[in-house]
């Protein structure tokens, strides 16, 4: 009878129970019991929650990464273009900087020099006899004449390059110190000896000083300068340094001295022609 009553009125009974229970829950909402019940529930739910958050974040990252790939690619292309542009700018900057430095040096040498100098650019180097002749961009119209000395600078010190051997209207040919026909009077200030320095020709990087008496003591690395007795070069222009003394011929009364030139013709771009001695 009782169970039949319950079965018949189960909806109302459950309704009443739920009503009372939920009212009780709300009434004691802030009590320790409900809070701890919540904590227990949260502890149980936490792993699932963690998993769901993980999946959600993965999906979000995945979706956003797909959408970001295109924009990143575009950005990368733009950056590449920008880098290319800046590389060009940097190259221009270094080139201009180098030119400015070069011009500053040229101006400095020109203003400080005690000779009247004509600056000239090397247009060509003799391909048959490498470096024994140079073609420069100054000629007759610029006041260049045959026999004028040609110098350059190394570490702010002037050194000989050669002499003008041929002059054309707009260009000239310079015979460098490497040419065997080149020779000039030189002076060794420490040994106090005057000699003649000559070119040694093709494939030789040194100059030679011939026939120096053996009783003269010459030191290695001693500087060699032009002498006032030379009709070509003004005095005290550096020719080079003593590099090697050939003392192999025991029977001879003289020996040969080899010089390492002060100016390396391979590395210069400009030369200075001494047009007038002040």
């Amino acid at each position, binding site marked *: 009878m009782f169970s039949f009553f319950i079965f018949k009125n*189960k*909806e109302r009974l*459950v*309704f009443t129970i*739920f*009503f009372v*229970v*939920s*009212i*009780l*829950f*709300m*009434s*004691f*909402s802030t009590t320790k019991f*409900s809070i701890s*019940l*919540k904590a227990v*529930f*949260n502890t149980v*739910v936490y792993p*699932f*929650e963690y998993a*769901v*958050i993980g999946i*959600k974040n993965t999906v979000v990252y995945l979706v956003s990464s797909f959408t970001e790939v295109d924009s990143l690619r575009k950005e990368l292309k733009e950056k590449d273009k920008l880098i290319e542009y800046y590389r060009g700018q940097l190259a221009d900057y270094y080139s201009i900087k180098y030119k400015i430095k070069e011009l500053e040096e040229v101006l400095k040498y020109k203003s400080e020099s005690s000779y009247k100098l004509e600056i000239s650019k090397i247009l060509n180097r003799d391909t048959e006899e490498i470096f024994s002749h140079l073609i420069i961009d100054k000629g007759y119209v610029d006041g260049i004449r045959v026999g004028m000395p040609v110098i350059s600078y190394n570490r702010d010190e002037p050194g000989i390059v050669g002499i003008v051997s041929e002059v054309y209207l707009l260009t000239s040919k310079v015979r460098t110190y490497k040419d065997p026909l080149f020779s000039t009077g030189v002076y060794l200030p420490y040994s106090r000896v005057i000699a003649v320095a000559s070119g040694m020709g093709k494939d030789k990087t040194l100059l030679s000083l011939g026939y120096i008496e053996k009783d003269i003591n010459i030191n290695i690395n001693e500087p060699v300068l032009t002498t006032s007795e030379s009709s070509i070069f003004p005095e005290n222009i550096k020719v080079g340094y003593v590099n090697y003394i050939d003392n192999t011929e025991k029977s001879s009364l003289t020996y040969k001295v080899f010089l390492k030139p002060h100016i390396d013709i391979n590395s210069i771009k400009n030369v200075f022609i001494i047009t007038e001695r002040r």
Partner: protein
Amino acid sequence: MSVFFYRTFLVFLSIFLVIYLFDFLAIKTVRPDLVLIIVTYIAYRKGSFSGEITGFFYGLVEDFLFSSLFGIHAFSKFITGYITGKFVSNFIIDNFFVQFFIILIVSIINNVIFLGAALVFTNISFFDYLGLLWIKTLYTAFVGVFLWYFLVYFERKLGEI
């Protein structure tokens, strides 16, 4: 049995959806009440007894997860489930407008009960809360229409209908 697990899964899924994935659907921090839609659907299909039991326990889960007044969701949902099962199960819901209207009415009932309980047990501002509840009611009704079709579809797949 499979339907029981399916419905349990639905509730947990909807709660997690509401918590974690529906931020981008939120209007003024209000999200659609997916649990209410599921309770309404079950009450409509199975009657008032199933409706009140489903509403109570699903509401309790919501309370556990995000309610400052413990029991308020269980309270509002079980009464809503009971009323829905009692009265709405007599209708034949076969078109869009009826669905929208029914879910809207159910949502209003749920929110009125919710607001009433909240006013009794807390000291919330009635008018501030009323504004948000209107948005929630309309939003739930709108989303509910679409969700209803999905629920029908999946239950057909499980062979319940």
